[in-house]
C-alpha cells in the first residue's frame, strides 16, 4: 500500500571514499600483475605444450588451418583479451544510456529514483574507445583477418574472393570512421542528457524533461542502427567468412542483459552501503524481472540463431559452431556450455519466484551469474576466431577482467559523486517514490 510507506529523504550525497579508491587501485594492480605474469609465462612457452597439442588436434580436424596459421603468437591472446573486455564494457556502458532513453521515451515513472546509476555508466565510453582504437592499430592484424591487404588482391595467392566481396564494408578507413561515429554519437547524446539532468536538479521544472525525451528518442534511433553495425564490426567481423542476420540482435540482447545486471547490482550494493533508501521492494522486483526477462530474451535469440544453423547444416554457417564446439581440441566447449548455464538456466530458475526478486542476496547471485556468463558469451564469440588453438583461460584473462572491472567501478563511482544520488527535481520522482506493484 503506497500511502503507508514512509518515504525516506531524497537528499543523498554519494561519497567515493578513499578506502574504496585504495581497494580499486589494489584490485587493478593485482590485475596488472596477473597480466604481466601471465604474459611472461605465455611468452616463455609455459602452457605452450598444451597449445601445441591443441593445435595438433585442430590441424587434424583441418578446420581453421588458415586462421590458426597467423594466430600463433602470444601477443594475439593479449590483444584478444583486451578486445573482449573492451567490447563487453562498451556494451555495458552504452546500455546505461539505452536504459534511460527508453525510460524517457515511455515516460516511465518507476525508474526515476535510481536513474543516476544508468546515467553514470556511459562515462566509461571514452576509455573503451581509446583502448579499442589503440588495440585496433597495434593488434588489428592479429584480431581481424580482413585487415590484410593481400586478401583483396586478385593477383596474390592469398586472394580470398569471399572477403574481397565484403571489401566495401570491411576496410580499415571505413571501419575507423564507423567506430568514431558510434562512440561520438553515443557519448555526445549521453553528455546532452546528463547535462539536462544535472541542470534539472538545480532549476527544476519540466522543460528539461521534455527535452530529454527528444534526445533520448534520438539516441534510440541512432542506437537501433549502430547497435547492430557495431556488433558486426566489433564481434562478427572477427570470423570474417561467417555471417548471421541475427547477430546484431544477439549482441544487443547480450549487452542489454549485462547492463541491466550492472544496474541492479549497483542499486543493491548502494542500498547495502546505506544509500538509496527510497528504493523499495517494488523497484527491486521490477529490476529483477528485467534481468529475468532479458536473460530469457538473450537465450531466445541465441537459440534462434543456433537452431537455424543447426537445422540447415550449411557448411559455411555450421563451421562457426563446429569450431566452438569441437574445434581447437575442444577448448571452447566448456565456455560454450558455461555461457548457456550462467546466462539462462541459473538466472531462470533462481529469479523465477516473486520473493527471490526482492531478496538482496539472490539478486546479487543472479546478477553476478549473468555478468560472468556474458563475459563468456563474448569470450566464445571473439576468442576462437582470433586466438584459435592458442586460447585458454589463465592469469591473463583474470587479470584483464580485474583491470576493467576496477576501472569501470571507479568511473561509475566518480560519476555518482557529481550529483545528488536521487534526481531531486525529476518530474516523475514522486511517482517513482510511491512505486507499488503489490
Amino acid at each position, binding site marked *: *500500500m*503506497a*500511502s503507508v510507506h514512509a518515504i525516506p529523504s531524497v537528499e543523498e550525497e554519494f561519497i567515493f571514499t578513499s578506502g574504496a579508491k585504495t581497494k580499486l587501485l589494489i584490485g587493478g594492480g593485482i590485475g596488472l600483475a596477473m597480466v604481466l605474469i601471465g604474459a611472461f609465462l605465455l611468452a616463455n612457452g609455459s602452457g605452450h605444450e598444451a597449445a601445441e597439442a591443441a593445435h595438433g588436434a585442430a590441424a587434424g580436424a583441418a578446420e581453421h588451418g588458415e586462421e590458426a596459421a597467423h594466430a600463433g603468437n602470444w601477443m594475439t591472446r593479449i590483444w584478444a583479451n583486451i578486445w573482449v573486455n573492451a567490447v563487453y564494457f562498451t556494451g555495458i556502458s552504452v546500455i546505461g544510456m539505452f536504459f534511460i532513453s527508453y525510460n524517457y521515451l515511455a515516460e516511465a515513472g518507476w525508474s526515476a529514483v535510481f536513474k543516476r546509476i544508468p546515467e553514470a555508466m556511459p562515462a566509461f565510453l571514452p576509455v573503451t574507445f581509446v583502448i579499442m582504437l589503440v588495440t585496433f592499430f597495434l593488434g588489428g592484424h592479429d584480431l581481424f583477418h580482413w585487415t590484410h591487404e593481400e586478401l583483396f588482391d586478385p593477383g596474390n595467392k592469398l586472394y580470398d574472393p569471399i572477403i574481397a566481396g565484403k571489401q566495401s564494408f570491411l576496410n580499415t578507413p571505413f571501419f575507423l570512421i564507423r567506430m568514431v561515429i558510434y562512440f561520438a554519437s553515443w557519448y555526445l547524446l549521453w553528455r546532452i542528457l546528463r547535462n539536462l539532468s544535472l541542470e534539472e536538479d538545480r532549476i527544476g521544472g519540466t522543460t528539461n524533461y521534455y527535452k530529454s525525451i527528444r534526445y533520448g528518442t534520438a539516441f534510440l534511433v541512432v542506437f537501433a542502427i549502430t547497435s547492430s553495425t557495431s556488433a558486426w564490426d566489433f564481434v562478427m567481423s572477427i570470423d570474417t567468412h561467417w555471417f548471421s542476420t541475427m547477430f546484431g540482435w544477439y549482441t544487443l540482447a547480450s549487452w542489454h542483459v549485462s547492463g541491466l545486471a550492472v544496474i541492479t547490482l549497483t542499486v543493491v550494493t548502494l542500498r547495502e552501503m546505506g544509500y538509496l533508501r527510497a528504493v523499495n521492494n517494488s523497484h527491486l522486483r521490477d529490476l529483477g524481472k528485467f534481468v529475468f526477462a532479458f536473460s530469457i530474451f538473450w537465450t531466445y535469440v541465441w*537459440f534462434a540463431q*543456433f*537452431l537455424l544453423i*543447426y*537445422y540447415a*547444416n550449411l557448411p559455411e554457417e555450421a563451421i562457426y559452431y563446429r569450431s566452438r564446439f569441437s574445434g581447437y581440441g575442444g577448448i571452447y566447449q566448456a565456455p560454450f556450455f558455461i555461457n548457456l548455464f550462467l546466462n539462462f538456466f541459473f538466472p531462470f530458475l533462481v529469479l*523465477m*519466484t*516473486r520473493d527471490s526478486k526482492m531478496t538482496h542476496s539472490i539478486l546479487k547471485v543472479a546478477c553476478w551469474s549473468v555478468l560472468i556468463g556474458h563475459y563468456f558469451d563474448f569470450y566464445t564469440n571473439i576468442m576462437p576466431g582470433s586466438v584459435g588453438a592458442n586460447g585458454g583461460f589463465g592469469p591473463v584473462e583474470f587479470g584483464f577482467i580485474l583491470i576493467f572491472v576496477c576501472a569501470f567501478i571507479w568511473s561509475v563511482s566518480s560519476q555518482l559523486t557529481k550529483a545528488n544520488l536521487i534526481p531531486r527535481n525529476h518530474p516523475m520522482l514522486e511517482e517513482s517514490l510511491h512505486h*507499488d*506493484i*503489490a
Partner: protein
Amino acid sequence: MVGVYDDDEVILHAVPKLRKAGVKISEVYSPFAIHGMDDALGHPRTRIGIAAFLFGVTGCICALTLTIWTMGIDWPMIVGGKDPISIPNYIPITFELTVLFTAFGMVTVFFITNGLGPSLVNPNMFDPRSTDNKFVMAIDLKGNRMTEAEITQQLRETGAEEVNIKQF
C-alpha cells in the same frame, strides 16, 4: 449489506479502518484493480504460481516424452541428417507445450477455485454499478457480530455514500 463508495482511494483507506473496528468484509468489487487492495483486505497470497510451475513442468515432460518416443524410439526417423533423438530440434515443441499446459492449467485452476464454472444462474450482483463507476463493499451480516446499525454507521464514517441491504 452493501456499502457503495465513489472513489478508489476512499475505499482503499476505508478497508483497514473497518477491519480495525472489527467489521468482517466479505469482498470488495471495483471496476478496475486497486493497487494495495489485496493487502488491505488481508487476502493470503495467491498460490497460482505454484500451480503454474507444476503445469509447466508437466507440459515440458509431456512434450519431451512425446517427441523422444515418437521420433526416437517407437519409429526412429532421421530428419535433416540429425540423430533420431536430437534435443535442439525438440526445444520449440517443448517450449510451446510448456506454455500451453501452463496457460490452460492456470485458467482452469483459476475458474475452479473461484467457482466461475459455466452456470445458468446469475452470480450474486451486489450492485450493478460496480462494473461502471462505483466501488462496492459487501459485508455478510450473518458472519458479523456487530449490528446492522453499527456497521451502517461505520460505513458512513469511512466515506460510503450509500448503504443498502440486499437479500440473497
